């Protein structure tokens, strides 16, 4: 753990009920020891978006059983967040396409994309997958989002994502 300078490691239930109490701990743990005062909050925000966007795609075990892992750590003066869980093939296709596209965008392009997605969201039904959360994660990252998929079965894939703030 020291080698990778981990601040937090969590494996278990990814449901909202389990994650909400964790926010303050993340904010406190990440916030202490870094000069930028708002880094803890930023980490909490990105983590929530990751969990809500990623675990939203994790329908394999039913809503009551959203399992996953996340790691938060320091990399020099930066904070990294890694998150992983299982997704279906349809979810993999959606995530892969969105993330691959976002990877190639500059900070300015991401801000413009966010604006456009916000405007467009008003025209869609509330349940439309706008990808806003993924854009917000990309916007908050200082480097392009890294991700990987590992196939575990015909409709079962491990999805891992690595974000550096």
């Amino acid at each position, binding site marked *: 753990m020291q080698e990778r300078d981990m601040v937090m490691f969590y494996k278990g239930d990814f449901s909202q009920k389990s994650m*909400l109490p964790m926010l303050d701990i993340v904010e406190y743990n990440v916030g202490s020891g870094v000069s930028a005062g708002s880094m803890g909050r930023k980490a909490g925000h990105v983590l929530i978006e990751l969990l809500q966007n990623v675990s939203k795609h994790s329908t394999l075990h039913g809503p009551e059983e959203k399992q996953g892992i996340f790691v938060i750590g320091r990399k020099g003066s930066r904070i990294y967040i890694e998150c992983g869980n299982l997704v279906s093939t349809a979810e993999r296709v959606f995530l892969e396409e969105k993330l691959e596209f976002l990877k190639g965008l500059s900070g300015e392009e991401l801000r413009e994309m966010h604006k456009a997605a916000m405007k467009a969201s008003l025209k869609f039904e509330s349940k439309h997958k706008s990808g806003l959360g993924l854009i917000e994660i990309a916007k908050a990252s200082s480097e392009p989002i890294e991700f990987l998929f590992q196939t575990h079965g015909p409709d079962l894939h491990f999805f891992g994502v690595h974000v550096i703030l």
Partner: protein
Amino acid sequence: MSASTLYIPKTEETPEVCFDPEKGLYSIRGRSLPENAFQFYQPILDWVKIFAPHIQSAFVLELELDYFNSSSGRFLYELLSHLESNAKAKNYVTIRWFCEAEDELMLEKGEELSQLLDLQFEIHRTS
């Protein structure tokens, strides 16, 4: 126009909402992280849709959020768009966005929203 007061107490994942026409106080405060933001914001949107066309004097909406997820952001934008799209009301509407002085993230989110809207939008940094 008499509109009833809309009050929603805050929870661990949703903000306190107070829209009180009698006192002229309108605010949303706290964190907004519901998984189903539509369900939470629907009554607020309904209230604003009915009330907005009847705004005849200064309407100040105070937003003091310390966290909100992307889907809450989408509905906050929709809510403010309703105020904006009502031409008669627009001149009377002021949005006051409060964020902690060190909170760059909430400052940025306030600025982003203000750029999307043609409304008087004040950003106040609290200590």
